[in-house]
């Protein structure tokens, strides 16, 4: 009798392994894009021989060619080099934003969902307020208060996303708290904190990972928008949003907009694809 159930179980795992191995080509491509982006931000000098700051005035506003993949800007700087050197700032600021949002929001949601009662009412109201202010407007207000630079823009972006994480975490915690296995752990002698940390938190966090990845992509967009409005580091920094902002004054040479835009879109698309893949494989 046991033999039969063993064999069916091993079939389940083998199917699981097969699907794990067979990753959709778009997902593989997305991981490749993210790998390149990470490499650019870690060691930009490996990918280009030009300087991101000093240009050759004679070479200004050249169209894309084999010498200058993305062309050159109004000061004769290689645009590809500027994009590569701008990656680190664009990516780390998005990372800062996600960490702030996930940690603060996750904590608020965890406490609200697990403690319930008055704590929940107060925290839920706070989240309501944060949700009521349009995301981007909130980010603008916060960056205004903190002062204009890219790190502050990242913090502002993180603050504006706290509510999203708090809400999802709270819903997940409440769902998990009502799960039968939580009551089972209680009956088997588990204390409140043991259940919170060992059962509720790991299960509730599972859906936060895809959300964090998704938020990473969104943060890139929001930070680019803040940089576009001039709330990030000033030139000669070369954040992607800033590059597009500079390019908009030279629409006769459209690659100044399209090249950094293309890199931004490709990155965010890849991140979103990975997030969806994570949600499905979970």
């Amino acid at each position: 009798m046991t033999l039969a159930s063993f064999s069916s179980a091993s079939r389940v795992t083998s199917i699981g392994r097969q699907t794990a191995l067979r990753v959709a080509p778009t997902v593989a491509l997305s991981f490749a894009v993210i790998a390149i982006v990470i490499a650019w931000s870690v060691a930009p000098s490996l990918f280009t021989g030009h300087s991101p700051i000093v240009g050759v005035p004679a070479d200004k506003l050249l169209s894309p060619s084999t010498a200058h993949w993305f062309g050159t800007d109004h000061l004769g700087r290689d645009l590809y080099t500027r994009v590569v050197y701008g990656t680190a700032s664009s990516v780390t600021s998005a990372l800062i934003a996600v960490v702030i949002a996930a940690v603060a929001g996750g904590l608020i949601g965890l406490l609200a969902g697990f403690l319930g009662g008055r704590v929940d009412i107060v925290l839920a109201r706070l989240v309501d307020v944060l949700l009521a202010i349009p995301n981007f407007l909130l980010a603008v207000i916060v960056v205004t208060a903190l002062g204009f630079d890219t790190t502050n823009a990242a913090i502002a972006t993180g603050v504006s996303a706290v509510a999203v994480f708090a809400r999802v975490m709270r819903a997940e915690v409440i769902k998990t708290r009502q799960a039968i296995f939580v009551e089972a752990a209680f009956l088997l002698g588990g204390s409140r904190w043991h259940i919170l940390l060992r059962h509720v938190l790991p299960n509730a966090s599972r859906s936060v990972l895809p959300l964090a990845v998704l938020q990473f992509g969104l943060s890139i967009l929001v930070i680019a928008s803040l940089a576009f409005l001039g709330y990030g580091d000033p030139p000669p920094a070369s954040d992607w949003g800033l590059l597009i902002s500079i390019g908009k004054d030279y629409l006769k040479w459209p690659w100044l907009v399209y090249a950094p835009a293309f890199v931004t879109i490709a990155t965010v698309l890849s991140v979103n694809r990975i997030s969806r893949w994570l949600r499905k494989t979970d």
Partner: protein
Amino acid sequence: MAAQDRLTADTLTRAELIAPVPLRPLPLLRVDGLSVCYGPHEVVTNVGFELGRGESLALIGESGSGKSTIARAVLRLLPSGGHATGRVAFDGQEVLGISERGFRPLRGRAIGFVPQDPANSLNPVRTIGAQAQEAAALLDEADKAFRKQLILETFAEVGLDNPRRVYDSYPHQLSGGMLQRVLIGLAILPRPALLVADEPTSALDVTIQKRILDLLTRLQHDLKISLLLITHDLAIAAERANALVVLKDGVIHEAGRTASVFSSPESAYARKLRADVPALNPDRYAASRDRGFHAVKTGGGDTPKIDVGAVTKTFIVDGKTLTAVDDVSFIVPAGTTHALVGESGSGKTTAVRLLLGLEQPDTGTISVAGEQITGRSPEALRAAWRHLQLVYQNPFTSLDPTWTIERLVREPLDRFRVGTSKERVARVREALADVGLGGHLLSRKPGTLSGGQRQRVAIARALVLKPDVIVLDEPTSALDVSVQADIVEVLLSLQANLGLTYVFLSHDLALVRQLAHTVSVMHRGRIVEHGTVAEIFDNPQQPYTRSLLASIPSGIAGAAHLPQARLRLMATAD
């Protein structure tokens, strides 16, 4: 009918070969060499059978047997990704290969469908009437008022008391039994020649189950409809169908007339299936059960292990007071099994939560092993749980999916700080061995285990603290019948070896009869009848108990009064 002329010479000769009866009437449904794949996984392999006009055939199998997939393939309602090959001929017309447009006229009009889960089978945001009108539209009847009249008549025909109220209701306002009657009504309204019923009663309470099955049988005879019944329950199938097809893992293991398959199954799988159905084998575990029974008779002098005295619990729901448990008392002698039997809403789940101290009763007392459970502090309750454990109904939700089996079974030892860590590991292995699981599962997570294995893990978790009393909340109702038999064996051998006392919750009287010593029948929060198994089953006093007993499918009632089956089966050998 033009469709009959389309029968190809090839099928004729094949039909002739299989059935050398001259002028045999054309079967209404003929499935031949049917296989269904989802991507690279074949879930149904080379299945064939025939169903004659006005007759009934049951596809029987456990989960994963492909029985519902076959029904969906015949109805051409396979979920996206499913692909069927082979031949399905309805009324002589090949229907598997034809276009959606060509098949649609058959839907509803010629082939009706009664689904498994009535609660999700009607659109929740539209009235019953609006959806009934869709079925009535298939009648080519122009007058809307007349169509409504027909709908109301059909609702009355399927036993709905107030057709007008039903017509104006939304699905969430009706009970599961009423919804299933509505769905049957919608299916028979256009007077189809074939009715496909996919586990039509498995989501319903036992007494309702019998009434719905009676309704289907009556309609089948009155309206001369052919019935393709999909079920996991061999006893129900034998009672309701002329012919049986037994499936396992998408392959036919046995097929034939009900009388022969049921009374003298030839394949090993059909024999095991028959042996595992509790309703057909009430005394299967009599020997091991009676050892405990002896204790009931002789152990009168000892204090009972569990003593529940006049317990009442009310809840306030939507401003109304609901008495979930009403003046309930029972005692359980040590080493025996007491069954709480009841349908949904009977209060048995609340009774168990009170017993475990998860809820406090309004009045009454509960003691386990001489210790009071009622009115205890949470800390004191925690001490009581060392001796009093619970196994949940659904092993798919009662184990934390992020933990390994080893950690799950060790958790109670860690929490109660039992022994050294070395001893704990040994006890985990011991508990797993007690429930028949090997040590190689220790590092796995619940998601990679089968349902039966998970329930064994849940039992091992309860067992590892060496409790005296284990409460079993429908521990097998989420499992297949053959897995259920395995779990019951494990439970009985643990009781015999360790002297455990069980409180066993169930809606399944046949299962209760196999393993319990004493029984309390609950209905609307009250215990309507209690006694030993023999007293309750052989001499029930209350009408409710009798109706519960009558709803146990016996496997013989139906087939006898049906016309002799003329259909032939092509059990595909492989």
